[in-house]
Each structure stands twice: as structure tokens, then as C-alpha cells.
């Protein structure tokens, strides 16, 4: 189970890793696109409004931004088992040669104790996992040399090649290629054979970058070998070849990538998802057009989403135009959301202005406007804060208003805090809006004294209830004191009960004592 969980975690990690050194500018904490899944990592403040409802209510949680991340990975596609493990070999009789060089004090767990290479194999794999590539390569070589009939020998070729590939020198890489060739010819049913060609192609790519003409030629041939077969292993090889070629000779690789991306068959979708990533890595005058075409026309949703994401990472005005076109012409709300996010990540003033204009526009779906408001709020700029406050006064849509309250609370700052309190005190505003403003004002960090002073200024019971809830969510001692005061002295029985409820939910060490006191005194 653990590995399964790990893979899920891994997917998230890959998708959300910081994009350090990414060539196109990333406005903030951009996401990494990773083969199948560019994921936008929201800027730091990410919160999902718990409904600022009257209590009892769940404790507020800093939580999620509107999900702007493209899908992470496709569901695992079934792949036929590729290679059966070879039948257990006849084992050579144990000899003195079987003495193993293992770390002192280390007792290997026996997997196949009947196999004389068992402990050696385990020691080799452990060395590999410790990044001790020299030792790992030597131990795997020893298995091949001393125990050629061992059940571990077929995979030892692959892992020795892997260790040498990690060492990375030209000589090591060539030796690794030779091992992989030998594995193919000697052990075509080895468990690792499915990964053999992908690793070999990757190694050729590295050799090509080191100036190895033969490897470069082989790589070019691999890329040229077009196939329409639905085969994940072939795809992996082709992606490795395209990646290698892209780093060696982008002018040759880009047209081939375009050919791959021009395909529309479902079978090639996994390949196209990788190709989108690759095409975005080498910005050419055609990059925006290619990405726009994919965003609009590719039948695979993930390819479309990735295309939009990568448009956000191309820092050109042409990319902004493309995103605007996606936003205006797409009928897919998910893609439109991605375009909004992508615009928010673009560094140009024009992109920001387009986003503000979109958020203001009547006649577009509220959900998209809310999305735009959220991302505007994440910018933190005073201009955007002014815009949101102004939009609040202009719109009659209550949901949009609530989204603006939330966004401004996320922006923080004294101006926004005061404005939120003003909304809370505005008797012309609806009660729900005022309650929401109270909640988000508190969440944005308004000093507690200001919140405490509101209790007597707000005659409406519903607002007082909201304040009690808001106090319960603050960590200051003064907030708990205020709850005690209300529980003891408020003339309104219902409000006292609310305060008692939240005292009961508190972690404050005084809570039990206070509750006992209130119980005793009625």
C-alpha cells in the first residue's frame, strides 16, 4: 500500500515542484509542468472560505484556492505485462567464491536464499539506492561475472547500466549502452527489459550532448521512426529521443514535435501530453501559435489544459493575445478557468488589465468572474485592491461580493482591513455580506480590540452571533476573555448560550473551570 500512496504523493510532488530556473518568467510560485501535468501552484495565500455562517460552525481553515491546476496524471492505463521473469536457473553449487562483500554488521534479508547471488544483489541495489554508483556498478558486474545463471543476472545488466548512467562520463555511458544491448540479446525476458530501450535512448541523448556523433545519429533515427501503434514503451522511447534531440538540435526537433502534436488519435494522447511540455521548453516564433492551436483544438482535455498553462509561461504579448482568444472563444469552462489563471501569472500590465476587465464584465458566467476575482486578489497589488473595492460597490451579485471580501482579506494590509470593517458596519449592506465581512476582517488580522469593540456597536443579534463565532476563532487570550464576559453577562440568553458553546469548544485551559462556574451559578 505504501508504494501506491507514495506514487500518489509523488504525482503531486512532481506537479507542484517549484519551477526554479525556468526560462520563461514565472510571475510567482509557478508550477512545474511535468510531462503529463503542469500544475499551477497558487500563490502563497490559499484559502477556501468556510461559510462565515452563524455558529455552531466548523473552525475556519486556511485551505484551498480555486483549483486551477490541470489534471495531474491520467489514470493508469492498463499495459500488458511485458516480460515474464526467467525461470529459476539451475544454481551453481556454493563455493568459497560466494563470500560477499557487504557492510560490516549488515545482515541481508534472504529473498531467494537458494540463489547464491541473492545477498550480493541486495547489497548492489542498496548501494544504488545510496547513490554509491561505483560500488553498485561493481557489485552488479560481479553478479554477471560470477553468477551468470543466477535469477538476478538478467536484471543485473540493467542496474549496472543504470549505475553507470548515473556516473555520467562518456566512457561510463558507452559501457552502459553496451550492457543494455547485452541484456536485450541474452535476457530478452528480464523483468527490466521493458525499460531497457527508454534508458538506452536517454543515454544516447546524453552522449549526443557530449558530442558523440554515433549516438546523435542513432537518436535522430529513433525520432524519425514514426509509429502509430498504441504502445507505452514505444512512447517512452520516442519521448526520450525527442527530448534528447531537442537538447541537441532544437531546429530539427521542433518540426517533429509539431508532427506529433498534429496527431488527433486517442492513442497518441499520452505522447502529445509529453510533447506539449517539450515544445514549451524551446520558445520559437511559432510557440504561441502551436500552443493556441492545441488549446483550442486538441481533443484531449489534458493536452488542452497543458497548452494553456504553458502559454502562461511564455512571457510574450502574443501569448497574452492567445490566452484572451482562449478565454473568449472556448466553450469549455475548465479551459477558460485555466486561461484566467494563466493571465494572472503573466507579468504584463496588459494581462492584469484584461483580467480586471473580465472580472467586471456582466454577461459572463459568475463562476469565471469569481475565478478572476480570486486570482486578482492573489496579486497583492494596491491597484488590484482598489479595483476590487470599487467592483464591490458596483456589483449586485452577492456571491461576487463575498468573493471580493475574501480576496481582499487575502491581500491583507491596513486599508483592506479597515474597508472590511466598514462593510461589516454598513447597515445598508445585507446581513450575510456583513457577516462575511466580519469573518474575513478577523481572518485578515484586524487587531482584536477593534473586533471586541464591535459587539456593543452592533445591535443585530445575528451579527452578535457572528462576532461570538469570530472571537472563538481568535487565539488571543483577550478573545477568550470576551467570550467569558458574554457568557456571564449578556442579557440575551441565546447569545450567552452561543458563547458557552464556543467556550466548550475551546482549548483554553480555563474552559472547564468557566463552564463549571456557569453551571453552578445558573
Amino acid at each position, binding site marked *: *500500500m*505504501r*508504494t501506491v500512496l*507514495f*506514487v500518489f*504523493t*509523488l504525482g503531486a*510532488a*512532481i*506537479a*507542484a*515542484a*517549484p*519551477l*526554479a*530556473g*525556468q526560462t520563461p518568467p514565472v510571475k510567482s510560485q509557478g508550477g512545474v509542468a*511535468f*510531462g*503529463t*501535468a503542469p500544475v499551477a*501552484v*497558487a500563490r502563497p495565500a*490559499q484559502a477556501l472560505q468556510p461559510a462565515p455562517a452563524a455558529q455552531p460552525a466548523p473552525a475556519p481553515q486556511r485551505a484551498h*484556492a480555486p*483549483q486551477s*491546476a490541470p*489534471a*495531474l*496524471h*491520467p*489514470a*493508469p*492505463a*492498463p*499495459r500488458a*505485462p511485458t516480460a*515474464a*521473469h*526467467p525461470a529459476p536457473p539451475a544454481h551453481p553449487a556454493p563455493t568459497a567464491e560466494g563470500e560477499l562483500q557487504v557492510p560490516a554488521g549488515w545482515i541481508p*534479508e534472504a*529473498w531467494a536464499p537458494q540463489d547464491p547471488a541473492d545477498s550480493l544483489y*541486495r547489497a548492489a541495489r*542498496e548501494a*544504488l*539506492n545510496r*547513490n554509491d554508483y561505483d560500488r553498485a556498478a561493481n557489485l552488479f558486474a560481479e553478479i554477471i561475472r560470477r553468477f551468470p545463471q543466477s535469477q538476478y543476472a538478467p*536484471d543485473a545488466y540493467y542496474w549496472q547500466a543504470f549505475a553507470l548512467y*548515473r556516473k555520467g562520463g562518456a566512457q561510463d555511458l558507452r559501457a552502459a549502452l553496451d550492457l543494455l544491448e547485452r541484456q536485450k540479446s541474452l535476457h530478452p525476458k528480464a*523483468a527490466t527489459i521493458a*525499460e531497457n530501450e527508454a534508458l538506452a535512448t536517454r543515454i544516447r541523448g546524453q552522449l549526443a550532448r557530449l558530442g558523440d556523433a554515433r549516438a546523435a545519429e542513432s537518436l535522430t533515427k529513433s525520432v524519425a521512426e514514426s509509429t502509430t501503434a498504441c504502445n*507505452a*514503451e514505444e512512447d*517512452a522511447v520516442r*519521448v526520450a529521443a525527442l*527530448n534528447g534531440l531537442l537538447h541537441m538540435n532544437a531546429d530539427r526537433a521542433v518540426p517533429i514535435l509539431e508532427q506529433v502534436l498534429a496527431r488527433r488519435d486517442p492513442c497518441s494522447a499520452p505522447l502529445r501530453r*509529453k510533447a506539449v511540455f*517539450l515544445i514549451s*521548453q524551446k520558445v520559437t516564433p511559432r510557440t504561441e501559435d502551436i500552443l493556441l492551436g492545441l488549446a483550442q483544438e486538441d481533443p484531449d482535455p*489534458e493536452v488542452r489544459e497543458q497548452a494553456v498553462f504553458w502559454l502562461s509561461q511564455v512571457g510574450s504579448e502574443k501569448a497574452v493575445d492567445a490566452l484572451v482568444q482562449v478565454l473568449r472563444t472556448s466553450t469549455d469552462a475548465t479551459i477558460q478557468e485555466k486561461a484566467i489563471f494563466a493571465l494572472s501569472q503573466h507579468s504584463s500590465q496588459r494581462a492584469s488589465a484584461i483580467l480586471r476587465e473580465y472580472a467586471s464584465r456582466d454577461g459572463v458566467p459568475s463562476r469565471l468572474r469569481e475565478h478572476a476575482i480570486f486570482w486578482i486578489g492573489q496579486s497583492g497589488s494596491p491597484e488590484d485592491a482598489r479595483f476590487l473595492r470599487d467592483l464591490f460597490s458596483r456589483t449586485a451579485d452577492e456571491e461576487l461580493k463575498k468573493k471580493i471580501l475574501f480576496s481582499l482579506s487575502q491581500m491583507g494590509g491596513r486599508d483592506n482591513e479597515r474597508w472590511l470593517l466598514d462593510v461589516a458596519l454598513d447597515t445598508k449592506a445585507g446581513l450575510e455580506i456583513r457577516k462575511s465581512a466580519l469573518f474575513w476582517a478577523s481572518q485578515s488580522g484586524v487587531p482584536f480590540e477593534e473586533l471586541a469593540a464591535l459587539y456593543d456597536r452592533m445591535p443585530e443579534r445575528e451579527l452578535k452571533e457572528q462576532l461570538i463565532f469570530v472571537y472563538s476563532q481568535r487565539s488571543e487570550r483577550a478573545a477568550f476573555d470576551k467570550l467569558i464576559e458574554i457568557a456571564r453577562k449578556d442579557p440575551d440568553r441565546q447569545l450567552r448560550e452561543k458563547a458557552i458553546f464556543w467556550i466548550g469548544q475551546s482549548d483554553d485551559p480555563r474552559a472547564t473551570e468557566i463552564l463549571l462556574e456557569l453551571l453552578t451559578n445558573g
Partner: protein
Amino acid sequence: MRTGDITPELSAWAAELLTGTRLLLDSPAAQDPRLEQLLLDLELILAQIARLSSTGDPDGEAAMIDEALENRGTLTRIRAVVPAGPPVTGT
């Protein structure tokens, strides 16, 4: 990890992630040494998972992978890289 978790689908998925990991290793993302090392560790672990379903001893192999994850603190490092935030939706 239980034997039942080790399926061809899991291996296929690992293989696909492995391809993606290698693309990232060649991308500017890997210019961050911390991320590069994490990606290298992931590459090795994924290579091991990718062949799990066809190995003759999946339990032994899985134990080896678990051990590697533990020893290298891979999960902790992943969590350090992944910012707190929304769960990523899949398709």
C-alpha cells in the same frame, strides 16, 4: 506494501512518471540542486516500481523500495517541495 498493490497498472503508471521525471531532469527545473537530487531519487525509485509487476519477487523488491524511501527520506523531501494547498485533481 502488499502484494496485491503491485499490479501492471501501477507499473505502467510508474513508467509514465519515470518518463516525465526524466523530462524534468533535463528542464530548467533541475537547475535547483535540491530539486535535481529529488528528481534523481525519484527516477531511481520509479525505475524500480516500473518493473515490480514483472519481477519474480515483488515482495522482496517492494521491501527494498520501501527501505530506500525510508533511508533517503524521500517522502519527507517531497512534502518539503510540495507547498500546502489544494489537492491536485486527476482525470
